[in-house]
């Protein structure tokens, strides 16, 4: 209990991912849905970093091997920033035409 191992980080990541997924599925407010997506991304980031420090592979290569997890997190952050920018722009555009940001009212994507 006192020694914090990889399992602790992974469980925390799982809980965070579940919270994010619940938000995506349950909330109707598009902004909150986007924020929940950010939560899920951060859960994944946490998992990356945990495995980066506690790899499953014995004798992992030093260079370009272990710290690949950090690099991946770097890319995820960059992509999340881009996604947030585009997603919020879309929300603004939709709100302008529909005067609503409730996700379940946007159901014209079925034809």
């Amino acid at each position, binding site marked *: 209990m006192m020694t914090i191992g990889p399992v602790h980080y992974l469980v925390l990541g799982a*809980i965070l991912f579940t*919270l994010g997924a619940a938000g995506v599925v349950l909330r109707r407010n598009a902004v909150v849905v986007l924020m929940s997506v950010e*939560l899920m991304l951060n859960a994944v*980031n946490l998992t990356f970093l945990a495995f980066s*420090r*506690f790899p499953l592979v014995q004798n992992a290569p030093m*260079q370009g091997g272990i710290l690949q997890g950090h690099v991946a997190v770097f890319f995820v952050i960059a992509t*999340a920033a*881009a996604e947030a920018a585009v997603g919020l722009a879309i929300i603004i555009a939709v709100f302008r035409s529909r005067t609503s940001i409730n996700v379940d009212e946007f159901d014209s994507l079925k034809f």
Partner: protein
Amino acid sequence: MEAVLFYIFAIGVVVAGAQVVLRRNPIYGAVSLVACFFFLAGIYVLLSAHLIAILQVMVYAGAVMVLFVFVIMLLNLKEEELGEMHVTTMKGIGLAAVLVLVGFIAWKALTPVQFARDMAVNEQIHGFGGVKAVGNVLYRSSVLPFEVTSLLLLVAVVSAVVIAKGKI
């Protein structure tokens, strides 16, 4: 010491994350999300990911969340426009599936797995997770994805402007 800090940060992450999902008013959610990201940054530090922790604070808590808050203010939704939380059957099933999945993964993860030694402490990799070490990997073996990411960000900037601006 490490354990105490981990539990403090972990509880903070979970509580703040739950606030994001459960709070009806998105502005509270956004502020909670900022808090969540700060706690996460602490977790990252515990994982010796110093560079990522700093990026987390600067990019997420700083830039992205400012964008969120800005948009929420811009939309300025009334109380009645916020809407209720609708739990339909399909949503419930989806949530249950996610719970089952996560529970299963956690159960699998908690079963004894032969992890490697702690890379930061036992192997004494100098500067694990620091700017120099990560930068070495990033600029040597991941140059192409890095450049592509820059292109992605450019596209995102342009498209955000094009989409959000009514007419150009």
